[in-house]
């Protein structure tokens, strides 16, 4: 297998704080990989490094074998990395459908001229294609029936799913999910579990940050553990669960006693 995403000694400092310190990490094509760690360990910062919100201070990040470190976020997204946010960042004033259509932005090409020539067949064809894609993505997270609701009126769990649909509309090779199950009830988590599996089955590699251990253990092929910006373990769920360093840092001392 080839690594789809590769972090090579990735480091970022904010002033004196080393938020992410020399992390080496591979995400293989077609797997579900999870990143766990205590609060403030730097998990979301790693996502922000990958998506270009912050450029790494040191080290490299490559995607599909090409370096993406220091590229602008929109270039990285266009290259095929979709993401969701820990604190939901939907386009609140817009409808559910518009949110996903914006996710499909990189799948279209008509710009200002397209807007002014809206009635011409090529522009209408593209609009139709984006619409089909958006609705397809919405049905993947079971939200198609809410297409015309305003995004901010959705309940919390559905807002999280809408973020996933929006990221899927990029038609990404890799999707980054930042705490997708946060704030969901057990039933919603179960649905989400199936959805994430289906997303992987449709050929998208999944890389997620999550706090819910049960969720992560049941879903992931591999887990990496982060503590104070340093990767302390990496492996199959059962290996990670048995790793003493992980138990001490994350699950708590004495958990095995």
């Amino acid at each position, binding site marked *: 297998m080839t690594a789809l995403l590769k972090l090579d000694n990735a480091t970022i400092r904010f002033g004196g704080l080393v938020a992410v310190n020399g992390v080496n990490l591979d995400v293989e094509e077609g797997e579900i990989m999870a990143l766990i760690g205590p609060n403030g360990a730097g998990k979301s910062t790693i996502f922000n490094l990958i998506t270009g*919100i912050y450029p790494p201070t040191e080290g490299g990040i490559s995607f599909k074998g090409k370096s993406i470190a220091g590229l*602008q*976020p*929109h270039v990285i*997204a266009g290259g095929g990395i979709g993401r969701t946010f820990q604190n939901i960042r939907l386009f609140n*004033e*817009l409808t559910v459908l*518009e949110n996903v259509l914006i996710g499909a*932005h990189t799948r279209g090409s008509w710009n200002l001229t397209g807007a002014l020539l809206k009635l011409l067949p090529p522009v209408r064809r593209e609009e139709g294609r984006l619409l089909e894609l958006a609705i397809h993505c919405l049905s993947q997270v079971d939200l198609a029936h809410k*297409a015309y609701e305003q995004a901010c009126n959705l309940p919390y769990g559905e807002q999280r799913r809408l973020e996933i649909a929006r990221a899927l509309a990029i038609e990404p090779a890799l999707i980054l999910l930042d705490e997708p199950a946060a704030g969901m009830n057990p039933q919603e988590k179960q649905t989400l579990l199936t959805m994430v599996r289906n997303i992987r089955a449709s050929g998208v590699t999944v890389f997620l940050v999550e706090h819910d251990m049960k969720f992560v253990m049941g879903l992931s092929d591999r887990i990496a553990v982060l503590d104070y910006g340093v990767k302390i373990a990496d492996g199959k769920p059962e290996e990670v669960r048995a790793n003493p360093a992980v138990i001490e840092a994350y699950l708590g001392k004495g958990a095995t006693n």
Partner: protein
Amino acid sequence: MLQGFVNSIDPYFLQILVNIGIGIILALGLNIITGLTGQLSLGHAAFMSVGAFAGALLTLKTGTPFYLTLILSGLFTAAVAALIGWPILRLTGDYLAICTLGFAEIVKVVFLNLEITNKALGLTVPPPQTALPMPVIVLIVAILTIIASTFIQNSRFGRALKAIRDDEIAAESMGINIARYKVQAFAVSAFMAGTGGCLYAHFLGYINPSDFGFLKSVDMLSMIVLGGLGSIPGAVFGASILSAAPEFLRFMSQYRMMVYGALMVFLMVFRPNGLLGGINFTDLVLRKLGVRPRGALRNLEEKQ
């Protein structure tokens, strides 16, 4: 025949109508950058000024045909906007607002001191030689601006602008090149302001750099805020009311600006989203007419 019809309208009333038309063009222009893209511009009168002087000079110095003048002055204004937008659109919120405010003052002072713009005396512009009477041209341009705005709002381009307005970080994570779209929106916005200015110059026949000061910018902003930021019917409505209000309130003489101010305060208290903000008119009308959506959307509705 048209000329005859226009001549039969009371000139005072006609003047108000033309003011409304120009107001609509200006408001819709500002709506693109402030309403749709969420970037507050407090200096949009500067673009009106640039368009007005560019148009006036083209007519005076080169005798370019009017329609060409109209387009060229719009394009020139858009180019100016793109040029200054590139550095200043990196700022957001208050900082951007102050920057546009400063830019507008610079434009005013430059025009007040340039030989070619006749310094503080301003320029007298001869009425354009066109087959269509001026009010009809204003009406046509206003309608074209409404159509263009509607098309922009419901396109891939417009969605990118709305995404930037709602959340810049999410927008760039969706592959939207924020810097580029902001500059493009600014240029389109300035194009409309420039054509509005050019029409203003040729209809009034006289322009002075002081006409396009801070108050003019605030006027334009009030129009779209009154109607509802980002709403096209709102901008049209706000522009109509505020262009006509000073005339209709004239009977109150000294008190009219006070009443005008009080109206704005009441509006912001009771309807902070603007009079027509948050209402989707296309949807309302289509539903009333029983028009069904096409293609993928219809399949979606049938599935439910």
